[in-house]
């Protein structure tokens, strides 16, 4: 019965348009009251849920990403990507994907990627005669890459949701090859769509020009090395690395590029405050929700239920992926990570799946959810950038969904894609 109160209140509030954070908080409040437990627990869990040092990486990575977009670092990375793959079939589409790989190396946000890379690429693609839906489709699905390539604050949210015992360095490393596989499969899809639509290619700019663009992009690329190298070597914690990313981005944009004005700085700060307050409020309230899930033994019942359906890990993983995909169409990523990790991770572990591997599956799966209606933050950003209605993007996005889904299946059933690289560092 208490589960009906918990999930019932949550769903009803969600449907009437209450902000997700408060749906989680209020349904926990109602359930605690129903169980006759002291309601103070809800607010204590909310507070402890966000009083975690490792969470500090989220405001910092978001802040750093914002500074880089406003301070020109992103544009230079896109220019370099243009020189590298513009001459392939599908030209600017391929550039768009590679730019997401590069931008993904400095930012962990798919929405930031869609607005930064999309904001630069979609107008260029329009101008060069590409259909807008093609440009938007690639921008949207390509931005999932930023979630997989480190840094990825969603991996940090996962690690914390799992009790803080999964190494963030391992999760970061584990995302690299799946991110590359996703980029490759999207490039293949972009190639075939471009071929059937007869899109042009870009001229190869030549070695000299390429060196110039590379030199221009070096400060951005150095940041990639700092973030990954710092976390991987254990010299810095993820929070410290993200802090260095902020300081470095300020330094480069203020003093090297001189591209960031005081007004830009204030705008970036305020944008970062808004985004992180929103994300972390969800995480805090999910802390209360998660406590009730544990208290009412939902994860244990879920393990029992799934064990009743099948004892084959292949089937179980497929089931979990489908459930997550469905949830992902309706809800945003960070609340889903915090809600589903305590439920699904014990199931995955009970079926012999490595927690690091499961984290990669989860982030990729929910990343796809960001690109699907009705609730898809990245899809909205992409359509806003391209100024097209969602249905127009939806008509032709299927090859790219297909590529992302194929990658999800590969990542799910070939654990080595995720686990081989971290193992090389042990």
């Amino acid at each position, binding site marked *: 019965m208490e589960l009906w109160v918990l999930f019932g209140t949550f769903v009803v509030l969600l449907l009437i348009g209450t902000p997700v954070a408060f749906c989680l908080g209020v349904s926990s409040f109602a359930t605690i009251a129903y169980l006759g437990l002291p309601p103070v627990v809800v607010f204590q*869990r909310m507070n402890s849920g966000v009083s975690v040092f490792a969470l500090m990486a989220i405001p910092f990575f978001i802040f750093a990403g914002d500074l880089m977009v406003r301070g020109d670092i992103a544009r230079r990375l896109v220019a370099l990507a243009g020189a590298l793959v513009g001459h392939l079939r599908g030209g600017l589409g391929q550039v768009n994907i590679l730019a997401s790989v590069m931008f993904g190396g400095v930012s962990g946000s798919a929405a930031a990627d869609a607005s930064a890379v999309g904001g630069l690429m979609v107008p260029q693609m329009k101008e060069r005669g590409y259909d807008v839906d093609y440009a938007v489709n690639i921008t949207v699905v390509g931005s999932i890459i930023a979630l997989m390539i480190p840094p990825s604050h969603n991996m940090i949210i996962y690690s914390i949701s799992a009790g803080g015992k999964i190494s963030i360095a391992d999760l970061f490393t584990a995302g690299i090859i799946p991110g590359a596989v996703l980029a490759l499969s999207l490039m293949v899809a972009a190639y075939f769509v471009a071929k059937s639509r007869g899109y042009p290619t870009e001229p190869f700019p030549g070695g000299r020009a390429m060196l110039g663009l590379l030199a221009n992009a070096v400060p951005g690329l150095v940041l990639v090395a700092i973030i990954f190298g710092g976390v991987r*070597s*254990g010299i810095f914690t993820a929070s410290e690395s993200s802090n260095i990313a902020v300081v470095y981005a300020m330094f480069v944009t203020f003093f090297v590029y001189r591209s960031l004005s005081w007004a830009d700085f204030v705008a970036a700060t305020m944008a970062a405050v808004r985004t992180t307050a929103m994300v972390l409020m969800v995480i805090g309230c999910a802390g209360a929700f998660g406590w009730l899930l544990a208290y009412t033994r939902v994860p244990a019942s879920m393990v029992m239920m799934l064990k009743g359906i099948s004892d084959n890990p292949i089937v179980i993983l497929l089931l979990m992926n489908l459930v997550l995909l469905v949830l992902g169409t309706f809800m945003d990523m960070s609340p889903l990570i915090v809600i589903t990790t305590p439920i699904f991770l014990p199931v995955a572990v009970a079926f012999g799946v490595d927690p690091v591997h499961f984290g990669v599956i989860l982030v990729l799966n929910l990343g796809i959810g960001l690109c699907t209606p009705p609730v898809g933050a990245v899809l909205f950003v992409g359509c806003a950038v391209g100024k097209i209605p969602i249905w127009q993007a939806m008509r032709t996005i299927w090859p790219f969904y297909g590529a992302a889904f194929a990658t999800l299946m590969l990542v799910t059933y070939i654990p080595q894609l995720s686990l081989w690289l971290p193992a090389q560092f042990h």
Partner: protein
Amino acid sequence: AGACETTLKSSDTHPDGYPTVEAVKAMSKSLEERTDGRLCIEIFHSAQLGEEKDTIEQTQFGAIDLNRVSLGPFNNIIEETQIPSLPYIFRSVEHMHTVMDGPIGQEILDAFAEHDLIGLGFYDGGSRSFYNKEKPIKSMEDLKGMKFRVMQSDMFVDMVSALGANATPLPYGEVYSSIQTGVIDGAENNWPSYDTSGHFEVAKYYTLDQHLIVPEVLVMSKKSWDKLSPEDQVAVKAAARDSVPVMRELWVAQEKKSEEKVRAAGSEIITDIDKTPFIEAMKPVYEKYVTSEKLKDMVARIQATE
């Protein structure tokens, strides 16, 4: 736990199978027998309900009934709990058992009552010693200038400083790679943690100085306690007492297993150290933390206990 009338909910941050978790399971069995099935215990292990600081508050507010916690989070709340947390206060594990099983231990348990908690009994937390990747530490001279990770606690930081080393509070999960990369030289912990954390792979010199032999405590929420009949209260106390020897036996076995594994992996265990200068170096630490007459008296009585 299944068919009993009232199920008490108990929290533990340790994983299933850990000696404290198994001890509370044993307590549940004993409690069920003693109350003819009126009471039993359901355990939420692995910090499912939160970290210790949080579950203590939940216990105080009556959201959970029982809680197995370290003394550390109580140090700033209940001054008596600082005493067993003092470095080198116990000469050995046996000394600690004698003190905590006796009147001093009872005094500390009684101090919880003022904070809406009932102290039921003490479990072992093992004895913590230094390990590092550089050299075998045999004297204070060897510790000079080395960097050790300690838990986030003012007293442990002061303890390491008083020994002439540098204390670096780091999250536990970062310790392995920080030793590997030389950000710190080592850390300190008990046998099982030295083993299961894998730290022995990167820090092979383990000096058994036993600077901390801090017991852990099992507490009950005063709110839940007050709901019990007097006879059930007696049963709870007795069942908790029954679980202590179970815990100690499992702990010794676990320590032995870890020691064998770590030795086989090539760790060098240093036992021949003269602890006297270490103990003498603690004077400023004791002066800073043992302030009231009550605490000073307690320290003197512990030191006088054979």
